[in-house]
């Protein structure tokens, strides 16, 4: 039982990172933009939150937790939305290819993040890990009143950092936005059939810009969560964020472009990813095979939706395609 509890806890923390990434990317993809820059965007969010809180913590005696959180959130959101803006400008305004632009954004984001991640060290004036203890602690604080219990239920569901619940909230809100609001309806139309949305009076360019930038901002929260909660306010140039970023892209497919499915899908990916740790008698080599599971499962889902051809589960019809009104 304790094995399962700790597996589940690990899966939730892991899953929250990719839940942010995938919900943000879902919003982006729903507008028809296939942004393969998610890993880069998560990198940007991660490094911005770290740098922001690092400078703040180093400039004052007693950092205020609220300011720590605010600074990190704003910095992460702005930096990752800026990544989305670069993508949007290149693909929407300058009509560059989406796949190529996205991959470039991933290269750029990982470069920026790892460069500054390494350099912050130097700027801090020395050796050793840089650490933003106060900010990390503020992010890892549990929910007031309900967290801190010692029962199994508390351990399974209540004792996580508050961002974990924010992720779920954002997923629910995104789902509600997409399926129950007029703006969400327009957004989906823009991704399905931009010419139709355009003819109906939706501003395709504006929708795509906004969806991509806001989506990127949400994806960037995954990077922030990774730095503040998962690695407890430290930085390592080990490429983990990139792997998690691609898992977030995978999760978008797994959820068939529905944020609500990301809530359980992300934790399932977490369980699949960490399962090896709790299965007895695995060699280190066969553990690696287990870590393949989330990707293999995604491939199977991808095949299933193309076999079943259920219209509602298909990728948005305009996904990856530029829209140019006068094109003929």
């Amino acid at each position, binding site marked *: 039982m304790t094995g399962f509890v700790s597996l589940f806890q690990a899966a939730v923390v892991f899953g929250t990172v990719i839940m942010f990434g995938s919900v943000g990317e879902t919003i982006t993809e729903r507008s028809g933009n296939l942004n393969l820059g998610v890993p880069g965007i998560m990198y940007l969010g991660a490094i911005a939150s770290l740098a922001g809180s690092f400078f703040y913590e180093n400039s004052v005696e007693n950092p205020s937790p609220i300011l720590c959180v605010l600074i990190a959130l704003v910095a992460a959101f702005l930096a990752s939305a800026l990544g989305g803006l670069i993508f949007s400008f290149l693909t929407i305004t300058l009509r560059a290819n989406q796949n190529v632009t996205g991959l470039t954004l991933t290269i750029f984001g990982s470069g920026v993040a790892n460069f500054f991640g390494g350099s912050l060290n130097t700027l801090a004036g020395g050796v050793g890990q840089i650490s933003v203890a106060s900010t990390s602690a503020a992010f890892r604080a549990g929910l007031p009143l309900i967290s801190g219990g010692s029962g199994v239920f508390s351990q399974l569901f209540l004792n996580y950092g508050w961002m974990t619940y924010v992720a779920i909230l954002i997923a629910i809100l995104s789902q509600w936005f997409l399926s129950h609001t007029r703006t969400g309806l327009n957004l989906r139309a823009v991704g399905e059939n931009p010419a139709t949305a355009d003819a109906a009076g939706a501003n395709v360019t504006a929708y795509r810009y906004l969806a991509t930038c806001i989506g990127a901002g949400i994806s960037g929260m995954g990077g922030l969560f990774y730095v503040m909660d998962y690695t407890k306010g430290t930085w390592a140039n080990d490429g983990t964020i990139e792997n998690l970023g691609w898992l977030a892209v995978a999760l978008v497919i797994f959820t068939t472009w529905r944020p609500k499915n990301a809530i359980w899908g992300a934790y399932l990916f977490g369980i699949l990813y960490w399962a090896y740790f709790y299965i007895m008698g695995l060699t280190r080599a066969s553990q690696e095979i287990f870590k393949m599971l989330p*990707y293999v499962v995604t*491939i199977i889902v991808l095949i299933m939706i193309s076999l079943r051809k259920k219209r509602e589960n298909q*990728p948005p019809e305009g996904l990856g395609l530029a829209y140019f009104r006068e094109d003929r």
Partner: protein
Amino acid sequence: MDNAAAVAKKKEPLVRITRRESMKTYKSVGIRLIAVLLSLIVSAFLIYSITKVNPLKVYVSMWNGAFGTARRSWVTIRDVMMLLCIAVGLAPAFKMKFWNIGAEGQILVGGIATAACMIYLKSLPPWLLFICMLASSLLAGAIWGLLPAVFKAKWNTNETLFTLMMNYVAIQLTSFFVAKWENPYGSNTVGVINQTGREGWFPSIFGQEYMLNVILVMVLTVGMFVYLKYSKQGYEIAVIGDSQNTARYAGISVRKVVIRTMLISGAICGLSGFLAVSGASHTISTSTAGGKGFTAIIVAWLAKFNTFTMIAISLLIVFLEKGAIEIASQYNLNDYVSSMITGIILFFILGSEFFINYKLIFRSREGGAR
């Protein structure tokens, strides 16, 4: 109509965009050069703001990093060949409008196959071992390319996402073999394979360690150019890339060609895994591909599937990487600065394509005055 008045007040749009029919070659090359130049200026400002060093000095040291010594030049060439090889492999798939994002994984499985041959078959005569490595890396890459192609051909499964996922399956597979072949125990790396006997290492040719890499890749580059431009299969690829309906009309089996082309594409990417393991690092790790599979996608795309143009673009990118690593070591930064600069330059080149394909028509003066 409450909004009618607002529409009535609206001016004629300031800029309109139309597609260009064609552009002179010197102009399009010029636009790209301007883009590279602009990106270098932006990067220079960035470097200056971080290091406070004269950017020109920085670029000089970048040049030194890439071509400062004969050894460095050869390493640069080796890495250009690797990147070029992958891009050449991607060319037929992209020309067919099949988004093979899976080069990274195809390289890795090719590398695993090569390393396996080096480890298990090192007692074979060198020429036979060489053939085994070549064949198994080609086969491994081909299989990795085949899977998404079959599903695309039969059920139209989205190949961009499928090949992307295959990358990570391959990465985990690599981790699996790294753990299996770990040497020394506990290091979590494979270490240099066959360090003493150099079994399965590329032989030096004309005294140059990396000459074989150059020869292999140049043969592929020329071969792929000819294949795409003059062969029957290349013609089929071009027709499918333009219109699948026309292909059907001409009696070209789209399924067959998609599968065949991805076998070729995957096989060549697998071969670059062979180059990476047997012809360069003599080891295998998850960073054997090191993102080159993604960078090569950009190379192939920017070169418009022309394999000779790919040489120039690969050279530019590798030069930047090497240069940036040099700056990093000289000014005590880390070498991720290269990814950052590469990213900036690619953004600019990607953006510049717009000015080659489209033209802007500004609102005329009298229209504006009205």
